[in-house]
């Protein structure tokens, strides 16, 4: 069952056409990987889905209804949770405050004990190595921050989770946990969109791979039926590319 479906999405920034005529379908219990070169428009697409930018044209269908996502709050309400590439954390707030931002327990008399307990649970689940959850996020390492951003998207009860390069800054153990997590999310029937530059990770957890190139769709593949080389060729637009050349050099 398709939860989310995009048709004809366009987005222009000044003189740059960041997205042109994008289509995408995500089903419940499906992991769709979006891959593409730097600047291909992946994050822009994510931002449109999560209400950060309005699209210039195109329709978004969510659970069968055409929807408008004018604000991030609207996306939350629909059940779309997002981990942004730039994380979007408040550096002045501590880990607990960031995790529960906008969804605090007991709004008029914050229950910080419950929130702290839940924070430790979430972080442990992701194998996070954070010494204290009471320090401002400004004092965390890059990977620690990314873990916080991922943990945050698990609060609430989303139907679709969008992960924009969720493992970019993570250590090997944390990356493994996130991949486990993605699999659990799929088992629980959520739709997952994952953006990644790591083909191994993509092949490991995704069901479908959608390739973007210079802001346009450049093929949708079933993971089982496509080789890493073919995906890379679709990303770079050529079978002879820096990656293949490097691979050859390595062999010779």
């Amino acid at each position, binding site marked *: 069952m398709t939860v989310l479906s995009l048709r004809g999405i366009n987005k222009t920034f000044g003189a740059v056409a960041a997205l042109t005529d994008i289509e995408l379908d995500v089903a419940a219990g499906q992991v769709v990987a979006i891959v593409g070169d730097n600047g291909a428009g992946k994050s822009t697409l994510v931002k449109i889905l999560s209400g950060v930018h309005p699209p210039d044209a195109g329709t978004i269908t969510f659970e069968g209804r055409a929807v408008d996502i004018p604000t991030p709050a609207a996306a*939350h309400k629909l059940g779309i949770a997002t981990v942004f590439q730039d994380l*979007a954390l408040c*550096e002045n707030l501590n880990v607990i405050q960031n995790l529960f931002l906008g969804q605090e327990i007991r709004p008029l008399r914050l229950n910080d004990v419950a929130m702290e307990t839940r924070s430790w649970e979430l972080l442990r689940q992701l194998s996070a190595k954070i010494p204290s959850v009471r320090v401002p996020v*400004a004092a965390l390492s890059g990977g620690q921050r990314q873990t916080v951003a991922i943990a945050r998207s698990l609060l609430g009860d989303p139907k679709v989770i969008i992960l924009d390069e969720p493992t970019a800054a993570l250590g090997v153990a944390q990356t493994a946990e996130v991949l486990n997590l993605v699999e659990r999310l799929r088992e629980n029937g959520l739709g997952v969109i994952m953006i990644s530059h790591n083909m191994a990770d993509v092949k490991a957890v995704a069901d479908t791979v959608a390739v973007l190139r210079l802001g346009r769709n450049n093929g949708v593949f079933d993971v089982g039926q496509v080789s890493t080389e073919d995906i890379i060729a679709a990303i770079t637009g050529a079978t002879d590319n820096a990656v293949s050349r490097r691979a050859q050099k390595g062999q010779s």
Partner: protein
Amino acid sequence: MSTIATDRQDERLKNRDGLRGAVADVVERARGGDLGVIPVVVGLIVIWSVFQILNPIFLSSANLVNLTLESAAVGVIALGIVCVLLVGQIDLSVGSVSGLSGAVLAVLFVGEGLPVWLAIGAAVLMGAVIGWLYGQLFNRFGVPSFVITLAGLLAFLGLQLYVLGTKGSINLPFDSGLVNFAQLDFVPAWLSYTFAVIAAVWLFASGFLHAQERRKAGLSARSVSTLALRSVALLVVLAFVVWYLGQTRGVGWMFVFFVALVLIMHYLLSRTKWGRAVYAVGGNEEAARRAGINVRAIYTSVFVLCSTFAAVGGILAAARLAAANQSSGAGDVNLNAIAAAVIGGTSLFGGRGTAFGALLGIIVIQSISSGLTLLNLDSSIRFVVTGAVLLLAVIVDSVSRRSRTSHGRA
């Protein structure tokens, strides 16, 4: 406790428990430059000592009673400024709004003969409406708050002159409850002591319950001895203050009112979802928006609060002076209110500050002003010295905060 608390398990943390741990914690934080309001307090003590040496009347009970009463009006305004600064905005018009509020109060109460509560209500409401207007202009048009409130500064000063009309200045009756509240009503000694005891007991009880809850959840918690020590310390300080001020007139109700507002704002800012949102918007507006926070509503709420507090401050100022006039709210009310917030540790860039900062900041400013008043200087010298003392007070503060930067936590 045999097992290590959940939040103390990382190997890199030095484990500490009980009273010794609490002390070690404070030392650690001091070395890291994270001292909260302590530097301001130190600055204050320095100022007080110097002025006391220069003129022994400075720390007299009578003078300190004056100090408390003189702090209330601008202090309340500073409380509102803290809120707008927390979201990274500014309100330059609090002086004008307070002046207008005083004028409206006087015209309605004295001029039109309305009951005082109605006049107060109208003035406060007007403050709220002004703030709402600012919020709308800010959210709809994206005009910088500096400019909106600069326009407000001018417009409401004009309105103030207009409201006062040809009279120019209106006296509030001395025997009215409002003027008494600001000038002559003091808390009876027994009640003051009761307040002090309640505060100490409440501090202990709430701390104790909280610690118990944390322990039950497997988290580290303050030991009973730490908690007890803390509330005994509070009791001693409060009782001493009450006793010393009681040597002459005691604790003024207006000051109690101000402190009560500070406590309420402290609660709202630190213990509610709204307060979290305020800090979040100030720290990273876009992140707050992406977290689903209604950022516009937060801005509006903060502008409304600030103008409302400005109106309340204007009423207190009028009550204290027993008059509303054309220059009420003019002069350095704006700068003093903003400076109080900043001296109290509120950042002009948003996301950092506390309600208590407003209280401490205004006391620093009023102490300087009162101390210099006692020194009998030429105006020219007085200005120079005021500037120098202000700078000194803040240098003490900044120097201790500074180590934080060098520890990379700027």
